């Protein structure tokens, strides 16, 4: 009995079990079932190791940052938080992920919103986010799973439905939907770009140098930004603390190693995500195709990039600028939001595409800039809503705008109950 409860409180095994059931339901061959289940479990364990590296690399950095600027500095990164809380909230997270998906299927089956949300890493991070928010409100166990699953299921169709009129402007049809927890901010900034831009001058008529294409490789860009962030912080910090943290090593080496270790953590984490999603998502997709006729898959943000490649570059660069401005402006709030490269990159590029579809060059520039700024300011303003220190997490906060809007609604709904 103890073995069973221990087994079910180990997140990797719960997710492994889900993959096993999914693969069996799809009548995969015996070898595929064994392979898929083991890879899912390994992937999940790798994910947790990655989160450990990230959290550890941010401890000395957070100390340094507070010493230098007398402010708390955070990076917006969902999956690291989600993986880091698995030691305490694994049951809630896994079941919200699974039941949320089933509610999504049910809603797609019975309503006109035929969307099936298939962006796995976001389904995982939002499931964990709702588990955290409910836990901090004093709700956990099956009650939390019930509430969290309903929220997850309902948002899985509502956000794609809200985005669809704008998606149509980009893709020209209803074959796919937008399954990404940043879709609302992207279509809102795209719409704004449309209002202020001029559709007749497209970004795609421009010739853009490919010199900066290497920045599209996440690990490179993230390393450069992190070295700059840690470096600038180290300059302003007390030299004594710096030499204490570096253990007497050269501060320059310490800066590069701290930044690189953070990036390594992200890469390890993503490798884990990749391994368990490669098994889970095809299973989810197969099941949805059987249960919901006419299902519209809601997919990850890069599906839009090819509609306007130049606009992605413009949107991303403008988002970085907007994000850096927000880093300075956010120091007026309770927290400094450091340039959060992954979010700025993926959302900024999409804002460029949506801005261009509705407002041409000027539209893409405005959409990217506004997205970068509002994205990070949203994180700064919402930061006091959820305190992650209980889970031993410092220097990180949630990064998905749609989910942050939902957190706000959850907190408002909890007010009458004093939670």
């Amino acid at each position, binding site marked *: 009995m103890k073995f069973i409860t221990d087994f079910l409180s180990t997140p990797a095994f719960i997710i492994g079990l889900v993959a096993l059931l999914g693969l069996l339901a799809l009548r995969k061959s015996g070898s595929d079932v064994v392979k898929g289940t083991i890879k899912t479990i390994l992937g999940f364990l790798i994910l947790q190791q990655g989160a450990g590296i990230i959290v550890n690399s941010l401890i000395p950095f957070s100390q340094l940052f507070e010493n230098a600027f007398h402010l708390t500095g955070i990076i917006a990164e969902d999956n690291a938080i989600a993986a880091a809380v698995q030691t305490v909230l694994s049951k809630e997270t896994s079941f919200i992920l699974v039941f949320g998906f089933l509610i999504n299927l049910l809603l797609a089956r019975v309503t006109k919103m035929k969307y099936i949300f298939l*962006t*796995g*890493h976001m389904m995982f991070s939002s499931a964990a986010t709702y588990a955290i928010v409910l836990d901090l409100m004093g709700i956990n166990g099956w009650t939390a799973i019930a509430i969290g699953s309903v929220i997850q299921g309902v948002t899985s169709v509502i956000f794609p439905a809200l985005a669809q009129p704008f998606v149509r402007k980009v*893709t020209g049809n209803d*074959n*796919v939907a937008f399954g990404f927890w940043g879709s609302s901010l992207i279509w809102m900034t795209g719409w704004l770009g449309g209002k202020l831009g001029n559709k007749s001058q497209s970004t795609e008529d421009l010739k853009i140098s*490919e010199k900066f*294409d*290497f920045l*599209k*490789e*996440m*690990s490179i860009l993230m390393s450069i930004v992190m070295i700059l962030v840690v470096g600038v912080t180290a300059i302003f910090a007390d030299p004594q603390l710096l030499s204490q943290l570096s253990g007497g090593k050269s501060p320059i080496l310490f800066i590069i190693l701290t930044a690189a270790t953070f990036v390594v953590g992200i*890469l390890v984490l*993503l*490798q884990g*995500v*990749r391994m368990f*999603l*490669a098994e889970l*998502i*095809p299973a989810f*997709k197969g099941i949805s195709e059987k249960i919901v006729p006419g299902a519209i898959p809601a*997919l*990850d*943000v*890069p*599906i839009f*990039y*090819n*509609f306007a*490649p130049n606009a*992605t570059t413009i949107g991303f660069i403008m988002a970085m600028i907007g994000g850096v401005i927000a880093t300075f402006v956010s120091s007026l709030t309770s927290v400094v939001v450091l340039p959060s490269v992954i979010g700025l990159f*993926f959302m900024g590029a999409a804002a460029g595409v949506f801005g261009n579809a509705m407002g041409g060059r000027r539209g893409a520039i405005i959409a990217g800039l506004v997205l970068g700024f509002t994205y990070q300011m949203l994180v700064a303003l919402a930061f006091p809503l959820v305190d992650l220190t209980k889970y031993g997490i410092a220097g990180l906060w949630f990064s998905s705008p749609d989910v942050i809007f939902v957190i706000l609604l959850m907190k408002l709904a909890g007010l009458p109950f004093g939670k």
Partner: protein
Amino acid sequence: MYVITVCGMGFGTSLMLLMELQSIGKKHNIKVSGEALDMSSFKGKKADLIVASSEIAKTIDGSEIPVLSIKNILDKQEIEDKFLQFFNQNKKE
């Protein structure tokens, strides 16, 4: 045949592409297995084919493995046509 699909993160559009290729394979009785990878980790891997969106494909150069560049990854017909063309050409050799 073993196919590597590539995208920025290695689990978004690359996974979609791989699933699409597998269903095309099923339709035409071609056994397709493979993995979805990100831009940093596909190098040095062995495969019969790399498939990626044209944006990603243009950053892949010097690869010994043939690369299929897909203009519109939402266009199932384009993926099917290009994949079958590749498959038939290589069968003859």
